[in-house]
């Protein structure tokens, strides 16, 4: 088994009194792509957003159990959420570039970290755009508004922006669900490349996508982790009947 990056043990999540995640336990390997699949409302997005504590902004939530990133409990006392989020980056379903220039979007995370050095910023911006496979398309118009980019480019810009702060983990919440097939393919190729340097957890509704890009797959249903195994095993030879029914499209 690969080196473990994220360890989850008996993790429960409540919206008010409504329990939406039940005793989730799994190990997410380092430098691999782990896909979270399951029908709408199964809790996969909630789980993803628990890893970098993005759910904290919702009032009335409560958690139990542990999520360890590099053996440190992200819900432990004394954890600085801000520095956690710098190590655990996130890309959202709907691309959400800031209404600023392409350059300023990518530089944002570094600037709020206090980086002022223009040369270092320039370097980090082009490196991040390059890693997100966007540099060639935008290098002549870094000062143009990010909102002028196409949907697929905007999403890759958001990936570049997340990479700029140099995280170890990248959480992706259905990053290609709003994109056309060609843009989707680009994102998938990118995810495949990025796993050399990053641990990636990706939520997807698209079964083929999970099969194409991920090494491990976790199947969620009704707030429970039904099955978690190598992607090949999940898709070819699942051990739980429910998983088989879902991936063969019998429900969902």
């Amino acid at each position, binding site marked *: 088994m690969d080196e473990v990056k994220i360890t989850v043990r008996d993790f429960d999540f409540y919206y008010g009194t409504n329990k939406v995640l039940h005793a989730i336990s799994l190990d997410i390997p380092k430098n691999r792509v782990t896909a979270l699949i399951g029908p709408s409302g199964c809790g996969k997005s909630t789980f993803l957003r628990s890893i*970098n504590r*993005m759910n904290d*902004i919702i*009032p009335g939530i409560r958690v139990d159990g542990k999520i360890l990133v590099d053996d440190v409990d992200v819900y432990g006392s004394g954890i600085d959420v*801000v*520095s956690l*989020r*710098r190590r655990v*980056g*996130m890309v*959202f379903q*709907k691309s*959400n*570039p*800031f*209404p*600023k*220039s392409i350059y300023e979007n990518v530089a*944002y*995370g570094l*600037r*709020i*970290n206090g980086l002022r050095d223009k040369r270092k910023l320039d370097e980090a911006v082009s490196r991040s755009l390059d890693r997100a496979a966007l540099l060639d398309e935008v290098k002549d118009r870094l000062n*143009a*508004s*990010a*909102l*002028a980019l196409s949907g697929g480019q905007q999403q890759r810009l*958001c990936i570049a*922006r*997340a990479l700029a*702060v140099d995280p170890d983990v990248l959480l992706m919440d259905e990053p290609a669900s709003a994109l056309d097939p060609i843009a989707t393919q680009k994102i998938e190729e990118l995810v495949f490349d990025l796993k050399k340097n990053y641990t990636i957890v990706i939520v997807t509704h698209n079964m083929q996508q999970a099969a194409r890009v991920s090494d491990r797959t976790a199947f969620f249903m009704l707030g429970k982790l039904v099955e978690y195994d190598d992607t090949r095993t999940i898709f070819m030879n699942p051990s739980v009947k429910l998983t088989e029914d879902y991936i063969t499209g019998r429900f969902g």
Partner: protein
Amino acid sequence: MRKFKSNLIVALCGASVLLALVPLAMILFYVISRGFSALNWAFFTQTPKPVGEAGGGMGNAIVGTLILIVIAGVIAIPVGVLSGVHLAEFKGTRFSSMVRFAADVLNGVPSIVIGIFAYAIIVLPLKRFSAIAGGFALAIIVIPVVARTTEELLRLVPGGLKEAALALGATRAKAMFSVILPAALPGILTGILVALARVAGETAPLLFTAFNNRFFSTNVTQPIGSLTVQVFTYALSPYDDWIRQAWAGALVLVTMILILSIIARVATRRLERMARG
């Protein structure tokens, strides 16, 4: 029959629009036709002449109105915008709904009452009328407008932007001031300028705060002239020359407000275009 009804309603709508526009057109027509003849260079540069002497101008009142707007802006913009930020950021709390209600009530308070308030808390303790007191009274009128506009516009900013900033390690305050507020800025700016343009035309709250001043003054601790109060005083006078000047003052006032409104529009559009690229 159905067609007739439809036509009737269209005609009624058209007539209503005309009815609404006629007063505006007449106001502009009167102000321009009566005011323009009294306008001359001296009107802008000179101060009022003593009773019985013809000529003179409202230079002091024009500058006074500008100073009052600046004082009102300096007080009301930070307070109003920050209150709006608070309302938008802590929208669910009891305190914020109380503040929201208070702002709406304050917005409906007659301006003369606000003048009395400024008189009680600034003019009385300092024992004199002053530009500060006048600007303060105007600021009180502007604050709730700016606060509510800011709140509404901040709420229109997509939640995804806030999430993106937080996910990059921004604190709540950082996300607000580096991403959300800038995204809403063009609209907020319009709100501020429109509110300031509105109070530029206020008379009642200035009567016993800024009072009036026949002489040229830029001292904010002294009474100061303003176009509105000057027009009010002159228009009630029995002297033909003063009444002519009151029209001219009204024309200048309307023009100033028009210019502010145009600046608001142009600046908003330019900022929006910059953001969109």
